[in-house]
Structures are given as C-alpha cells and as structure tokens.
C-alpha cells in the first residue's frame, strides 16, 4: 500500500486514493498553475489506521445505536464528539508512523504547513458536501503534523459531515479520507474566486481580504468583492470592505490583529491583481472543463491556488450561504460573542418583562370577549418567543459545543464530556429553586408537628414561618403543578412535594461540587500563555451558553404557564357547553355562543388490533449520566404526573424541562426520548449524579408507570423487567 504520494505524482494516482481535493491540486500543478508544495497522505493510511485500531467498528457501533431517521442533530453532534474523542485517544500504529514520517520530515522539516482534508466524496459537482471536513493551519513540527492528520481524519465524522450524509441519504458510516500536507503560505492578500456567480451564470465573483483567508472562512470580516463579466472579463461592480482586523499566523495558530496603516487602503487588490485572479479561475476552468471556485493567496507578487473545487450545480442564492463553501454550519467564536451580548442584554430582559406583563392581568375579571382576545394575544406572543428560542437561543448552545471541542482537542480527556464539569454554575434558577425546596424540607424534618399536619392534610396556620416561606417560594418559582388544571390549591403541590422530599429514603441527590478553581487551573494549564486569554473568554462564553440553556427554558416556561392559565380560565367557563375542546377552538367558543366544533371520530380499538402484542425488553439510547439504577418507572406526560412522583422512582419523559427538574432530588434515574448530552436531562443528571439515558426513541411507547426498569447510564441501555 502506498501511504504517501507527492503532489507531482498525484495526477497519476487513482482519485479515490488521494481524494478529490488533492487530485485536482495535482492536476492543475502539472498544468503549470502555481500551487504550494505538498504531499498527500492517501486514504490507505486512513484505512490502515481505522482498521488496525478497531476504530471502524467502534464508529459503526456508535452510529448504529438508532435508525438514521430517528437521530436528531443534537445526537449527531454527540456521536461526533464521542467519535472525535476516539480519534484523539487512539494513537497511530508505529508501523504506519514509520512509513509516513520520513517523507513529511524530508519535504517540510520544521517549516509551517497546512494540514487539509481531501475526502473521497468531497466536492463533487452535484454535491453540497464541500468543506464539511476540516483543515488546520499553520501546523509546525512532525509530531504536531501527525497529530493534526488524526484530527483531519476525525472530521470525516464531524457533525456537519454526518448531517450532510444523513440529508443526502448516504449511510452515516460511509466515507474515507486522504490528507494534504501543504506548505503554509502566509499570504499578503487572500480570497476566493467563484468561477460562476451563484445566481448569474454569466458572471464570476472575486472576494478578497488582507492577510490570511481563515477570517473570511469564519465569517469574521466582510471581504471586498468584485463582480466580473465572464464574457469580457470586465469588472461590473466592486464593493470595498471595511477592514478593521486582519488575520496573521503566530506561534500557535492564527491571530487577529489591527492592520497597519498601509493596509487600510480602499481595496486589498489592484486592478491588475483582480484580473490575475480571474485569469487563474479561467485557467482552472479550462483544465477541468467546468467553472471552479478557487481559494487563492498572493505571497508577494506570486499568486498561488490553495485549493479548488467545481462550482456546485445546485447553487446557493443567498450571500451568507456562500460561506458554506467552507462548510461550517457552526457559529464562530466571534459570532457567538455578539449573540451573547444581544441575548443577555435585550432578549432575556424582554422575555422576563413579557411574562411579567401577562401576570398583571386578572383573568377572572375579563369578559368572555376580552378573555378570547387575551388568549389570542398570549398564543401569538408565546409562538413568537418560541420561534426566537429556536432561532437564537438554541444556536447559542453552540457555545458549549465549541468549548467542548476546544477542551477535548486540547486536554484530550478519556471522558468526552469532562468539559461539562467546568460549566456547572451555581446560579441556575432550577438549582436555586431546588435549594429552596431542600430548605423547606429541612424545616419539616425538624418539626414533627409540622410533618404530622402535612401528612394528615391539615392546614399549617400554626407554622407561620413555614407558611410564609411557602408563599414566597410560590411567588418566585410557581406552584410546581406546572399550571395543570387539576391542581386544587395553590400551595398543596408544594407542601406535598416538600413532605416527600423531607422523608425520602434514598439519597439521590445533591449536586456534587468539585473545586471549580482546581478545574479551571487544570484546563488553563494546557494552553500556552498567549492563548490563555482566549481560553478564559471561551470558558466564559460557554458558561453563559450553559446557563441560558436552562434559564431561557424557565422564562419560556413562565410564558407557557400564563398561556395555559388563560386557556384554563376559558375551559372553566366553557365546561358546561363543551366537556372537551381543542386549544385552537377556545377563542372562538368564547366569542360565539353558536359555535359547535366537529369532533373527529377516534379510531376504534378494534382497528388497532394485531395478532401479536409488541413489547420491549431492552432499549438503546445514549449514555448521558453514568451509574446504574433500578426502580419503578414514572411516566411524566403532563404536570399532574409530577405530583404523583415518589422517592426512588425513575422519571420517563419525552424531554425534561427545567420547570420539571424539582423532582430530581427524589429521582433515582432519568430516561428521555429526546437525545443529546447537552439537553436538560443530561445536564441535570450530571448535576445530581443520576444515571441517565437519553434518546430512547420508544421509551414512552414501551414503558408504563409502575414498570420495573433498569437504567444503565454507562452503556445507554434501558431494561424493562417482565411484569
């Protein structure tokens, strides 16, 4: 097997062995186009590594846990993180190192290089697959190069690559990867020429910026742009960029700097240089017979092609989508910092105020018409916030992911979720609420008379202190019934829960506390001095992301509660006319006394009958909280189910929302249908040290309250005992 091919020989190799990117670079190099010196580590090297270390099968097992259609993107991200962890912690066999090390050292010595992916399924003309995999630059020294080859291999399994394969209907387990080791070009000006305009076939586009291209790829700065007539080569339009920063290579990666005064001229390219870049695109088009998008850089006066790919057939209409050329669906660090400012400074306060304004309305005093209007208003407002939640808050969760990735790449821990220990804040609203509940439970433990009153359902007027605490708790956190219509009295659910908490037999949980300072120091010790500020800033961002992931749900939950309260009031008024009514029919039913909604017929039991009865003995999900627990299942579908929750039970739900997590101190395990390590169930499980399995697709279908279940949080397995 040939593990290394020099670029000048790549054109003679099978494209499959070297990947399309390397193959094209080899071809254009042979046709006289200037490209950086390079070697290609063939896909044989990847295959040898992945097979001899058993990684191929470990990956298949990881991705084969569920049917592809049942895997959510969050689960794909988790799978990708775990797979990346496997690559980080699996060394190359020494026989392979021996074969590739010498030619790399011989060609590059201690010079800086770019380590680029060259996947065999990358960049085909009809695919939107381009740029799904990763490149690293600048990299220096043989050990670092070997290390980054593994990281590029791991990117074959990045979340964007997996998502791309899922959406294009390919099997997740498909793919192989070659790697290009390319001399690093510290360009004076860099950019991309799009051989054909995304929406105008007769035009080409050049984008350029001072310094290195990576800032462009990350979308950190806007490039200058030229629109060119493909027929004549004439510049049709030019947009200058505002350049306040530029990216330059440093000792440990690329750094943002302020440009020198000489660099603040209006255009990073002269007219002649624009034409040279355009001619480069034409020349490459001539070689391959189809327009190409080419990443280029000027080193001094010399123009280099760094990589190229055919302009996609199915193109991209929006300007922003062009960044998909670089394939990152992830938000950059800079982007997330801006998002944080906006979320914390504007959206969250607005959310709180909206919820507060709802609470000021006395629903009982409204006429039916007014109540109808109030419900419509609350529904529209809630839906708008729900959209905002999906559009802005969920993407901000990428802050945690970005941190997790940097942490794992830098620290290389055996547990790919170790980074979450650093994110545990002390001021989560849900944690604060649970501390207050524990305080109330302690009062009950200390006072047998109070406990007795609660057990017998007597009022607690003789315990004014306790009563005031309960009232204050409800004012702050709600009544724990999650506004279920059947909750009888505002304080009963809290008192009932506090009694259970006071005398729970198991000691499931108080959040575990490690020394945060030690953890921080350990994390920072892996960064060189000049990278420590970045490491701190990223940690800060990730903590905000972690906290908001919890708090935003609480705030959204408050709004949902207010909406439900208005619907509850309406149902109470309409109970005589309509025993059952859909939420959407309620506003009209309030306004129109003659309204009579048609009830759909339910399919009869008989239609659903089969000759077989299907049950589950064992279900697979994702291990999200280590440990093992056996207990009685409590299926939670609505707020009322929470009131039934008993100490030692295992909560089974579609998704664990923050306003449900007060039951955690009573629970002995968590089973969630929704998958992901950064969802609430997983976060809270880690917080309380509870065994947790997420992404159990059939949990609600197969598990009933009262079933005896075992949660294996190490392996992600749920076992349901025979009844």
């Amino acid at each position, binding site marked *: 097997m040939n593990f290394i091919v020099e670029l000048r020989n790549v054109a003679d190799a099978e494209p499959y062995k070297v990947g399309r990117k390397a193959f094209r670079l080899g071809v254009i190099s042979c046709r006289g186009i200037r490209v950086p010196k390079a070697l290609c580590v063939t896909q044989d090297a990847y295959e040898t590594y992945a097979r001899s270390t058993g990684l191929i099968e470990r990956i298949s097992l990881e991705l084969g846990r569920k049917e592809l259609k049942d895997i959510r993107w969050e689960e794909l991200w988790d799978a990708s993180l775990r797979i990346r962890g496997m690559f980080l912690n699996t060394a190359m066999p020494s026989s392979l190192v021996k074969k590739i090390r010498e030619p790399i050292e011989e060609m590059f010595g201690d010079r800086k290089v770019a380590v680029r992916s060259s996947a065999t399924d990358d960049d085909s003309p009809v695919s939107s697959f381009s740029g799904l995999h990763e490149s690293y630059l600048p990299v220096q020294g043989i050990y670092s190069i070997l290390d980054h080859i593994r990281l590029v291999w791991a990117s074959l399994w990045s979340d964007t690559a997996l998502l791309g394969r899922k959406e294009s209907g390919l099997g997740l387990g498909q793919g192989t990867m070659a790697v290009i080791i390319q001399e690093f070009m510290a360009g004076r000006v860099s950019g991309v020429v799009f051989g054909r305009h995304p929406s105008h076939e007769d035009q080409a586009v050049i984008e350029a910026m001072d310094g290195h291209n990576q800032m462009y790829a990350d979308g950190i700065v806007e490039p200058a742009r030229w629109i060119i007539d493909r027929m004549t080569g004439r510049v049709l339009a030019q947009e200058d960029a505002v350049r306040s920063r530029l990216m330059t290579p440093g000792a440990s990666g690329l750094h943002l700097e302020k440009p020198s005064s000489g660099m603040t001229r209006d255009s990073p390219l002269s007219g002649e240089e624009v034409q040279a870049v355009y001619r480069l695109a034409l020349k490459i088009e001539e070689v391959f017979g189809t327009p190409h998008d080419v990443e280029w850089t000027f080193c001094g006066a010399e123009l280099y092609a760094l990589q190229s790919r055919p302009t996609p057939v199915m193109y991209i209409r929006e300007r922003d989508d062009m960044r998909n050329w670089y394939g990152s669906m992830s938000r950059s660090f800079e982007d997330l910092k801006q998002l944080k400012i906006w979320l914390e400074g504007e959206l969250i306060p607005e959310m709180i105020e909206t919820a507060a304004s709802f609470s000021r309305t006395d629903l009982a005093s409204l006429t039916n018409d007014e109540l109808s209007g109030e419900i419509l208003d609350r529904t529209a407002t809630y839906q708008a916030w729900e959209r905002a939640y999906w559009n802005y808050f969920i993407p901000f969760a990428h802050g945690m992911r970005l941190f997790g990735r940097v942490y794992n790449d830098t620290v290389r821990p055996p547990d790919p979720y170790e980074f979450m220990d650093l994110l545990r804040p002390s001021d989560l609203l849900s944690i604060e609420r649970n501390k207050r509940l524990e305080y109330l439970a302690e009062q009950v433990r200390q006072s047998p008379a109070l406990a007795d009153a609660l057990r017998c359902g007597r009022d607690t007027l003789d315990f004014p202190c306790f009563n005031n605490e309960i009232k204050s708790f409800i004012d702050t956190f709600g009544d724990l019934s999650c506004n279920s219509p059947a909750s009888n009295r505002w304080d009963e659910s809290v008192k009932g829960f506090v009694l259970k908490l006071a005398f729970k037999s198991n000691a499931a949980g108080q959040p575990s506390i490690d020394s945060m300072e030690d953890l921080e120091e350990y994390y920072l010790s892996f960064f060189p001095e000049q990278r420590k500020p970045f490491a701190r800033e990223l940690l800060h961002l990730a903590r905000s992301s972690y906290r908001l992931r919890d708090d935003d749900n609480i705030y959204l939950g408050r709004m*949902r509660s207010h909406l439900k309260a208005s619907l509850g009031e309406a149902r109470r008024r309409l109970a005589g006319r309509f025993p059952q009514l859909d939420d959407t029919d309620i506003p009209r039913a309030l306004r129109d006394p003659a309204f009579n909604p048609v009830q759909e017929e339910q399919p009869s039991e008989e239609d659903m009958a089969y000759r077989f009865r*299907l049950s*589950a*003995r*064992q279900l*697979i999900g994702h291990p999200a909280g280590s440990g093992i627990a056996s207990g009685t299942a409590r299926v939670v579908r609505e707020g009322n189910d929470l009131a039934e929750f008993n100490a030692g039970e295992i909560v089974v739900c579609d*998704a664990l929302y923050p306003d449900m997590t007060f039951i955690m101190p009573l629970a002995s395990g968590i089973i969630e249908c929704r998958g992901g390590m950064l969802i609430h169930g997983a976060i809270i499980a880690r917080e309380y040290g509870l065994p947790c399995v997420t992404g159990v697709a059939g949990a*609600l279908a197969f598990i009933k309250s009262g079933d005896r279940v075992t949660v294996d949080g190490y*392996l992600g397995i749920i076992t349901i005992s025979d009844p």
Partner: protein
Amino acid sequence: MDFNTKEVKVIDPQQITLQLKALFSSQGLAVVSTNDHGQPYSNLVAFASSEDLRFLVFATTRSTRKFSNIEEDHRVSILIDNRTNHASDFHEAMAVTATGAADEVLGPEKDALLKAYISKHPHLEDFVMSPTCALMRLKVDRYYVVSRFQHVLVLSMKE
C-alpha cells in the same frame, strides 16, 4: 400543562413480523436448545416457519438426545440469526430467540408444515420422510428480537 409530548410512534408489530419472515427465509439453520436433565443442550438444525409465524419446525430422528429431551420437557428455545462472523455483526446482525413448547407433529396438521419444510430444504426430503424421523414443531409463545447489538423487542402471541 403538558410537556410537549410528541405523538409517540409505536413500532408496528406488522413491521417486525415482516422482518422475521425475511430473516427466516434467509436462514436455513437454527440452534435448538432443550433441557437435558437440567443442563441446557443446544443443536444445530434445519428449520422452517409456518406462514403465520405461529410455528417453527425442524426434523430429527427419534433416537437423538434432543428428541428425548423434548419428550421429557416440552419447553424449547430456538435461536435464528444472520451473523456473518465479522465485527459488523454487532451493529448489523439480527438475532431472534423463539420460546414455547415443542412436540412432534402428527395427524392432519403435519401435511402443511411438512410441505413448508421440504419446500425450504428439498435436499432433506428423504431424511424427513424416513419412518425414523420426526417432524418437530415449536408452538411459539414469544419472539425476542435483538437488533443493533442491544435493542430487544418482544413479540408475544395473542391468545
């Protein structure tokens, strides 16, 4: 309030039965386990299934240990799987364990099951038609269906 519980899609039992039929027709051999005086005892046999999946059949001479074991204790389990003996089996293979009570098929019920058996294993016609050979039938109570390494569903026969 409800917790946005989505419509839960229960896996269709019909879908599982189709998977079982496909597995049974793709495999010729199965492992039969019987009770040999308290000691589990396993054998490889050529098997077939009835169209409605209620029965699995196999043939054995009456002098075998498994035959006498079944005469003593009708409780039997049969394992059918599509392993290839590669590591990929752990995420690709399917294994089904059928449990129930087994006995020799005699009388009018025998014709249809014999036909199904010979049609699947024509080379065993002489063997199964021998007077010394018994056509055994497992009346299935349950199928334990294992896929994806650890995913275990149970298909129980309704009475």
